[in-house]
């Protein structure tokens, strides 16, 4: 019975919760990156595997545009 409640020492309900959060994160990243033509499959798959670093880095790099490109002086 304990084997059904835990997987690798992690409670099943926690795994389901993390899985659902990862799916939501990855879906949002996929749709947003697709809208902006910014490698949607990469962001979607990364968002599926990890939480919440992909979202944070996506926000900083894609949405906020950091780092700003250096302007070339003529």
């Amino acid at each position, binding site marked *: 019975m304990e084997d059904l409640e835990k997987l690798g020492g992690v409670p099943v309900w926690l795994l389901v919760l993390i899985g659902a959060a990862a799916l939501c994160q990855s*879906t949002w990243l996929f749709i947003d990156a697709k809208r902006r033509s910014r490698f949607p499959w990469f962001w979607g798959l990364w968002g599926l595997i990890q939480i919440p670093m992909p979202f944070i880095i996506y926000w900083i790099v894609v949405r906020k545009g950091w780092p700003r490109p250096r302007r070339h002086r003529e």
Partner: protein
Amino acid sequence: MTKERKDKDVQAEKPRKTGSNGSVHDDNSRLVETTTPAEAQWEGMEQELTAALERWDARIEPPLPPMAAFEQLVGEQRARSRNRLWRDLFAFWAVAALILSLMVLVVESSIIGFVILQATVFVAAIAFVATGVRSKEEAGEWRT
């Protein structure tokens, strides 16, 4: 009529001397304008041509499509984009189900293996983003 206007009209009526080469002089023998016969002919032709073109232009009325046609075009494009997005989303969710299943298997077999997998994926993703950002600086944009 104001005094200035009257004076101008009087000035316009004053006779002007025309030279043999087409130059026009006023009463004080100051050169007003210089036009050769060829230039005068060309100006006359240009005026006729311009008038004819303007008459032709006024007759032509290009058929403007109604607003509904543009709205329909936009609506069709939106529907196509929406269908494409749903198709891609279903493909993504199918792949996501596969990857989530693999991750559950890894967690079940070994937690250490799962941690190593997470670290590897993190480093690879950061390296990809850093490469993309450097390309963006060089090229001016970072897009698919």
